[in-house]
Each structure stands twice: as structure tokens, then as C-alpha cells.
């Protein structure tokens, strides 16, 4: 029991201190600083775009991984999972070496007038790189868990592959997809290392909340603290929603049996 309490304390105590300090400081004026507001807005915007792109491209990918066995299947799964354990600095460096002005694709991008580093698009790319695995993984597992009888029944009834995907698989996997979206979104919002390396740090362009917290803490700690409070509450809210969804899922599963 005691070791458990220690571990929970280790995780909860520092967060509680930040919340308490943030609450006793003048939170309202600190969060309404232009730089803090810009960081908040940029974080919400970029993480929402990252989420949209990931869901659009990641859902078919997860479905394919769950349903088809092909050469290199394991390799693709491993590749897609890799960013979860990769240090974000490595991710940032890899992005810079691939898409930077002097990177592998730099000349091609340059030819069409695109330069990614130091842009908001770079922030989005960094977030997708680091956070998409959380969605793809959750989506793949929930697609794989679907009873194949549903699919067979739909096909027997004359549904096309697309209809099976959109009318049968997506609704059944819905909760799993939603929890993957929440995890992905929370991770994207917290992205730091890859962002500062690949996108740099400029207010309104690439300075997301984690960057503003990191650099702001050394200059004006009240804004940084206020942003940290917002980030903790947002992430906490998302994790709470995730729990609710997963609990509901288990209840449904129990009801089905």
C-alpha cells in the first residue's frame, strides 16, 4: 500500500504545487498577457489541425493494419509505434534533416517555394510525428477487436468495402477511436522537444504553450505558471474524459455478454 501511495504522491504532489502556486498568483492577469494568449491560441490551433490530419490519414492506416496481413506488416506497426519511445529531440532532429532547408527533401520543397522550419506548419508536423502513434495504436486495437461476424454479415447483405468501413467498423470502433483521439490530442498539446528543434520559438508562429512555459519561466514566471496551470487542467480534463469513455466501453461490453 505504502509504495503505491509514494508513487501517486510523486506524480500528484508537484502538479498540486503548480496548481496551488498558479491559483494564488494573479492568474487572470498572468494568463491574459499577449504572449500567454498567443501561446494558448497557437497550441489549440496546431493540436486541432494535427488531430484532424492524424484522424483522416491514420484511421484507414489503422484499419488496414488491423485487417490485412502483408509483407512488412510488423515493420510498419513497429515504425508507427516508434515515435512513442523516441526522445522528442531525436524526432525534431530527424524532421530537420528530412524537411529542413538543407534536409533530404529541402531542395524539392524549396523548388516549389516551401520552407518548413520556423513555421506553424513545422509545429503541426512535429506534433503529428510525435503524437499520431497514440491514435493509430488505439484505432488499430479497436478495429482488431471487432467480431468478424459483423463484417461478414454486412458483406452478405451486399455492403461494399467502403460501406462496411464507414457504417459498421467505424461506429463499432467508435469509443476506441475517440480515446485514441483524446490521447493523441493531449500528447500533441504537450509537445516540446521536436517543436523547439524543428519549428524554433517565435511568439504567434511556433511558440506553443510548452515552449512559452519553458522560456517564460526564466523571464516572467507568473505567465509561465498560469500557462502550466491551463495545460495541467486541459490535460487532466482530457484524461478524465478518456476514463469515462473507457469505463462506458467496458459497461457496454459487459452488457453485450
Amino acid at each position, binding site marked *: 500500500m505504502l509504495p503505491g501511495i509514494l508513487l501517486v504522491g510523486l506524480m500528484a504532489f508537484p502538479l498540486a504545487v503548480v496548481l496551488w502556486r498558479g491559483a494564488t498568483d494573479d492568474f487572470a492577469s498572468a494568463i491574459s498577457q499577449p504572449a500567454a494568449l498567443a501561446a494558448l491560441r497557437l497550441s489549440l490551433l496546431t493540436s486541432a489541425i494535427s488531430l484532424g490530419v492524424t484522424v483522416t490519414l491514420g484511421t484507414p492506416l489503422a484499419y488496414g493494419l488491423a485487417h490485412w496481413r502483408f509483407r512488412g506488416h510488423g515493420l510498419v506497426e513497429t515504425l508507427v509505434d516508434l515515435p512513442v519511445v523516441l*526522445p522528442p*529531440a531525436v524526432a525534431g532532429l530527424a524532421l530537420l534533416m528530412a524537411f*529542413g*532547408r*538543407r534536409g533530404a527533401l529541402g531542395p524539392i520543397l524549396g523548388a516549389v517555394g516551401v520552407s518548413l522550419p520556423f513555421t506553424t506548419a513545422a509545429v503541426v508536423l512535429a506534433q503529428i510525428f510525435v503524437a499520431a502513434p497514440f491514435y493509430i495504436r488505439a484505432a488499430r486495437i479497436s478495429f482488431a477487436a471487432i467480431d468478424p461476424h459483423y463484417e461478414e454479415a454486412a458483406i452478405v447483405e451486399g455492403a461494399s468495402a467502403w460501406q462496411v468501413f464507414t457504417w459498421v467498423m467505424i461506429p463499432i470502433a467508435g469509443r476506441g477511436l475517440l480515446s485514441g483521439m483524446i490521447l493523441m490530442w493531449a500528447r500533441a498539446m504537450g509537445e516540446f522537444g521536436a517543436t523547439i528543434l524543428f519549428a524554433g520559438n517565435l511568439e504567434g508562429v511556433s511558440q506553443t504553450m510548452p515552449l512559452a512555459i519553458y522560456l517564460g519561466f526564466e*523571464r516572467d514566471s507568473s505567465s509561465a505558471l498560469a500557462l502550466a496551470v491551463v495545460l495541467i487542467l486541459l490535460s487532466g480534463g482530457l484524461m478524465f474524459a478518456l476514463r469515462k469513455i473507457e469505463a462506458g466501453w467496458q459497461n457496454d461490453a459487459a452488457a453485450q455478454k
Partner: protein
Amino acid sequence: MLHRSCQFVGLAMSVILSACGVAVPSTVAPSAPTAVKATAVPAAPAATTLNVFAAASLTDAFNEVGKAFEAANPGAKIAFNYAGSQQLAQQIGQGAPADVFASANAAQMEAAIKTGRVVSGTAQTFARNRLVVITPKTGPNPITQLKDLAKPALKVVLADKAVPVGGYALDFLRKASATPDFGAAYSQTVLANVVSYEQDVKAVLSKVALGEADAGIVYATDVLGDSASKVNRIDIPDALNTVAVYPIAALNDSKNAALAQKFVAFVLSPQGQNILAKYGFQT
């Protein structure tokens, strides 16, 4: 090709390390022999480790100072924590186990004094540094003189203004704008070209050396030795330059106060000053 890729790996490592920003005591290479000795002879007293918090711009010079100090003081082991001075002052304020603090400006030493861990008046100036503008060696180079920094659509990187070198860079722009030669709009135009305010001077150097930015402002000492082959430098005339003053102090709550004092004295000694001079610092 091999040579180039080696260089790139080195650069990559420095990018990663500077990006992490967190306290990474660099105990890896220089201290390894000492550690081996200590375990080989269990009867010998354990090595005393001194934690030296030093500005990122001191990295190369202090690595050598540390080796020389360890050679002169058997049993002493230096663990360096290099980062932006503002970050080090912040860590000291939060109670990080530092024995010596070497800052790249007076302001961050003041910040450390305010925390009560450095006694006012004990900090001593041990080195001076100047600013230079750097541009990448590879690719098209639109910048050949200081005025070119104001050209449209350039990508300029500076250190964040919380970092000493970032503050000094703004000083330079302000001073230049006050001269008729550069014109009043110079500072504003250059700042409009800034695409990123980096977390320390090594990050600025990396972004320019990688060719991702067209120009950056760093210390003269950053463009020596290894890095000299990766970037071109444009000197800033004395009248516009800000001389960075580096203060060093032992922390008053150091567990190895005597050794900490000894290290500070060593940095100020002719031997220490010679090493600093070798890395381009004015002493």
C-alpha cells in the same frame, strides 16, 4: 563524405543536447578515467565531485579547464552542467546542487545572488567575450556585411532575450540603429527577419551551421576551432559591440566549499586564463 557525416553527427549531438536544455552533467568523457581509478582501488577515498554550473558558451573552454584542474587536484572530479545562464540561475534558485556558478552576464549572477546562495561581492570577472554575426558556409549567402541583416525575407535566429547573448544582440541592434550609417529602421527591420528566439547560444549556432537560418548572432568564442569550419563570421565593430562580462562565484552552501574556492582560483590563475584565452575569451 565520411568526414562530412562525422561532422554532422557531432553537430547533431550538440543540437540534441542543447535542445534538451535540461541539466545533463557532462560526466561522460573527461571524468571516466577518474571513476575507473576510484573503483579499481576500493581503499582510496571516494573522489570528490564538484558541480560546476557554467554558461553554454563556456562549454569547450571549461571542459579543458576541468581536465587541467582534475590533473592538478587528484581525487577531484568536475561535473559540468552547461546551459543558458538564465536557466542555470533558475536551477540554482530551485535548489539544484551547484558548487560553482559561472554566468555569461552580471544579470544572471545577480539573480543567483538574490536567491541567497551566492554572497554578494564574491563574484569575480574571469573572462570577456564579444559578439559576432555568423552565416552558413553552405548554400547561397546573401549576407556579406552587417547591413545585409536587414535585407527582406532573410531568416535570422537570435537567442531568446532571457539568454545573455540574446540581450547583447538586442543591444547591438539598438546601438547600430542610433548611427546614421545603419539608420533608425535597422533594428526593427532585422527583428522582423527573426524567425526564432533560441534557448541558448549553441542552439543558434546549430541552426545556422545546419543552414536552416541565414544568420545568427553568437559569441566570438563560439566561432573558433571546430565550429569555424561550419560558419562564416562577420565581425561587429567595437563601437557597436557589447562586451560580455563573465562572473564566477562559489556557492555559499557548497558541500565542498574549499574545493569550490580552489576551482574558482584555478579559473582565475594564469593556467586557467591561458586556457580561456586559447578558446578566444578576452581575459
